[in-house]
């Protein structure tokens, strides 16, 4: 006989034990199935992570039918399996239930008011709410600005009134804390008691009803957060949930996936659930339904490479569409956007620098050798090429402390004597980046019309250079090196203060920001209607989220929101552009949101068409390196 039990204190773990008369084949089959999650054990015992065990649950069926082995399930595991079975039945029932009629929606509105919720929801929000509360666990993939926070709090109010949960734990980026705090006050007649989890030193009082934490702190102080979630029936909400897309492989992902076991109800909120393709959904579904993701998602979703394959997108969409709600950007009836792509050749010395750089890497990357080391090197090369395409002076500086950790790289290594050294020395005396010149002009023109400009760059050094160059416009600047702290001393520059200065100080007409630090959770649409992208990376999530800072619900109908993309012709800027088109298109397929492509991308007559259609970013860069004509085809 084989006995199995789940242990939920700390990290969720399953212990499997066999008796002496156990079937050796059954035991072997079980060890094979659990292999990737085995943590420790002895001849008669195996300790395995709960995720892996639940994902391989069907093997128990095999042990019985093929080997005739008896299985004894422990009481905790049985309880957990019963709730999984109930989850399965209720999510399948929702699918059959179809769309709600008007009467049902009205009833829900009344129930919501009785639950102490005072804000009035819009039509699409109440429809989303209806579906979310009828699912055992919910996913809201509505675009930024559609009011996911409000709908989520409405869901909590309903579930609390129905006696299903009595606490709420929200894990999200710090930038979104402000919105949660404001909404809690504005949505409830009696706002629930809120505590902001500031890390391991935080004491969580017993009467806390809502806990607000971020991914990093929740992972570092896992036990305290788990304790809060497990003690009473708790709704656990992940805001900007795409941050866990690396799933169990990432530290943050691992921690929240483990927390999932302690929560009575789980929800994920993100407008960009799959910025890289279908595979990104695996972590989200695993969080909502631990151990059941394989039952929900088709096999092909698990192959990261196929993540933007047409048929995979269709199949994955068909598998998950019933489990999430999405208010598409088009449904918000936002006023229009206009994209302007400015694609210009680089001036001669910059072009020579770019070519020299390209030549240096070309020979080593065109041959089909794709080791891991190569991949890491390639990441660095991408940084250098992006820098060279915008401002070659960044090459010798390396990354800034405030940069997105994903972009950290050393200065370009130069040994002296190369042509590059000579070119770089001449560059600063004879040329300046055309993109900088263009931005200066855009900012100055706007200032003369009393308009404000938002400038995006992924590199903090660009932001700092522009800060000096645009000094007369008193730029506000926000990046990873600017702290987020509302309680900081008056003379400290914080993100919140910079945003406020940009919003309210007439002298400050430009905001310089990087998408990693302020792509999420910030609203600037009342103050600014024109964003300029100095450069972009392969990160489609950043690109989409950054647009939503100025293009969101609440804009007046007559406002045109403009996006200007600056591309150095024939450089990596073109490859990035092509790849972003592909990723956004894939996301629109996955989310049944065809308008996304129109709204969030330049249409083909606004930019260059025939973007390179490569399998992945790696190939796009390698193709760029290999394409000796790229630079001559400007």
């Amino acid at each position: 006989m084989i006995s199995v039990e789940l242990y939920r204190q700390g990290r969720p773990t399953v212990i499997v034990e066999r008796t002496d008369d156990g079937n050796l084949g059954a035991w072997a089959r079980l060890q094979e199935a659990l292999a990737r999650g085995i943590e420790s054990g002895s001849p008669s015992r195996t300790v395995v992570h709960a995720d892996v065990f639940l994902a391989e649950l069907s093997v128990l069926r095999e042990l019985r039918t093929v080997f005739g082995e008896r299985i004894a399930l422990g009481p905790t595991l049985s309880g957990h399996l019963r709730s999984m079975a109930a989850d399965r039945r209720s999510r399948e029932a929702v699918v059959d239930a179809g769309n709600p009629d008007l009467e049902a929606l009205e009833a829900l509105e009344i129930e919501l008011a009785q639950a102490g919720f005072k804000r009035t929801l819009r039509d699409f929000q109440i429809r989303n709410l209806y579906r979310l509360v009828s699912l055992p666990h919910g996913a809201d993939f509505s675009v930024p600005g559609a009011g996911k926070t409000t709908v989520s709090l409405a869901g909590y109010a309903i579930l609390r009134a129905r006696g299903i949960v009595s606490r709420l734990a929200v894990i999200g980026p710090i930038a979104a804390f402000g919105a949660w705090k404001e909404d809690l006050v504005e949505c409830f007649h009696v706002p629930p008691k809120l505590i902001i989890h500031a890390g391991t030193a935080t004491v969580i009082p017993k009467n806390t009803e809502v806990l607000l934490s971020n991914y990093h702190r929740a992972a570092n102080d896992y036990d305290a957060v788990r304790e809060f979630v497990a003690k009473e029936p708790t709704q656990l909400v992940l805001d900007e949930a795409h941050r866990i897309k690396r799933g169990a492989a990432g530290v943050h992902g691992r921690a929240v996936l483990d927390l999932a076991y302690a929560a009575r109800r789980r929800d994920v909120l993100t407008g960009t659930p799959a910025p890289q393709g279908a595979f990104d959904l695996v972590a989200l579904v695993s969080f909502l339904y631990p151990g059941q993701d394989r039952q929900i998602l088709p096999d092909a979703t698990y192959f990261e490479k196929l993540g933007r394959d047409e048929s995979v997108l269709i199949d994955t969409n068909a598998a998950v569409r019933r489990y999430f709600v999405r208010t598409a950007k088009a449904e918000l009836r936002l006023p229009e956007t206009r994209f302007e792509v400015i694609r210009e050749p680089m001036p001669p010395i910059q072009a020579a620098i770019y070519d020299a750089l390209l030549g240096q890497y070309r020979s080593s990357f065109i041959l089909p050798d794709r080791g891991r080391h190569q991949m890491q090197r390639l990441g660095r090369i991408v940084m250098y090429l992006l820098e060279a395409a915008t401002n070659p002076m960044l090459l010798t500086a390396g990354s800034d402390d405030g940069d997105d950790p994903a972009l950290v790289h050393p200065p370009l290594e130069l040994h002296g004597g190369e042509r590059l050294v000579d070119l770089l020395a001449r560059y600063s005396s004879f040329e300046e980046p055309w993109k900088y010149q263009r931005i200066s002009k855009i900012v100055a023109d706007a200032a003369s019309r009393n308009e404000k400009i938002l400038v995006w760059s992924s590199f903090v050094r660009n932001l700092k250079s522009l800060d000096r160059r645009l000094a007369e416009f008193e730029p506000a600047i926000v990046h990873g090196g600017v702290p987020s702290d509302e309680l900081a001393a008056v003379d400290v520059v914080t993100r919140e203060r910079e945003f406020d200065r940009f919003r309210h100080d007439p002298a400050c007409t430009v905001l310089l920001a990087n998408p990693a630090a302020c792509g999420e959770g910030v609203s600037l649409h009342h103050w600014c209607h024109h964003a300029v992208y100095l450069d972009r990376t392969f990160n489609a999530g950043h690109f989409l989220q950054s647009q939503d800072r100025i293009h969101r619900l609440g804009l007046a109908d007559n406002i045109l929101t403009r996006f200007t993309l600056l591309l150095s012709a024939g450089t990596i800027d073109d490859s990035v552009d092509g790849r972003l088109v592909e990723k956004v298109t894939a996301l629109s397929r996955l989310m049944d949101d065809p308008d996304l492509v129109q709204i969030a991308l330049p249409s083909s007559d606004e930019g260059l068409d025939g973007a390179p259609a490569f399998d992945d970013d790696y190939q796009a860069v390698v193709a760029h390196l290999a394409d000796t004509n790229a630079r001559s085809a400007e």
Partner: protein
Amino acid sequence: MNPVIDQERADFLATRVAGAKLQLLPQWMRPEKELPVVNLPVEWVCFSTLNHRTRAEQMRVIMTSGVGDLFNGDPMGQAAQAAQLKILSEQEGFEELKQDLRERGQQEPAVVTAEGVLINGNRRSAGLRNLWLGEGLPSARYVRAYVLPSDATTDELIDLETELQVAKDYREDYSWVNEALLIEEIFESSNKDWDRVASRMRLKPSEVRVQYEKLQQLHQLVAMSNSTRYHADFVANESAFEELSKHVKDKSPAEAASVRSVYFLGTLAGVNYRDLRHLRRKDASSFVRAEFASDPTLTSLLTVVNSTEANATDDLIEDVLGDDRGTADNENADLTSVLSFLAQRKPDEIVPLPGGGEVPIDNLLASVKNAVNAAANEANEDSKDAQAVVVPIVRLTSARDELIRVGTSLAKARSHYDWDEEIFKTRLYEVKAALAHIETL
């Protein structure tokens, strides 16, 4: 510890040890690595029944004799020792070993415990005993052996065996099954930590894992046979188990199940692993199932099998999983039923078929072999067709890569004295002509 030590034997050995010369045994893990070496009568030493080198064979003897504790009830008793000697004498290469001992005698000392049980040198001692008792060869009368201290623990004995096993000279004596059994035992006794197993075996973690994973597949097939097939029967099938366990590792559950059932069935029926290779694909069981359908005997077999099949479906697990089994799962279920049906019967058993007639298991296995072979052929043809579609692209891609290499090597070649620009130009012209031709197609 050895709580029950045979005092009489221990005393006998102690008298020999007194005054014996010490010799270095580097693999002994204690700091005192110099141990007494003595000559012991070859009939007096006992074979170790714990030795992993014979584990698979022991499992077979236990099953066929029906004596569950044959080797661990009274390991030094007559029955256990006789069975162990028989196993050792029947292992592959035993005659060659005897010939070597006849010509060169015992080269390295064996290793015995304080009561004279061989930890190392079992096969050589069996060979010497055979030569002394059978041929009266005087040089085979004594076996020279290191004597371990009387307080050596079981753990130390396993460690020593492992150390000696990994020393180069000893490794090849282990069949893959026995080596994998040793790895499994170390894995289970070291808190299932692959790094520890690897360091003890002097192998990489990935290497010990591969052996372990192969063994888990073998355990399953043996268990399905319900004591009619043994681990030792599959020593020759290492490649099939290796390819199977590698293939199913990261596959979807459906594909893993499909490939596993086909591999088991094929291995049981004697299909060569090179043919099975073609069936490493998701639809493997569909291919085999289709061949079953075209063979009347096998179609009848399916009827017989399915009528005896009792499926226990109830409870919680089913409730969680729901009914998500598709056609592929049904085909797998069919094959798994056939598999356990065939595995549980001896080759000479007779199976009555529905609608009269009967057929020996042996013939059924032959039919299964044909069916799996035919399925492998079909699958092979199928993938060749699929490959044919991309052949021109593959060729063109490698040509492109080669041409790029030409560019990078050209400058260096040109600087060379022997460089022939004429030949270079001719080749270049030929390439251009070939390209021009392709473009006209």
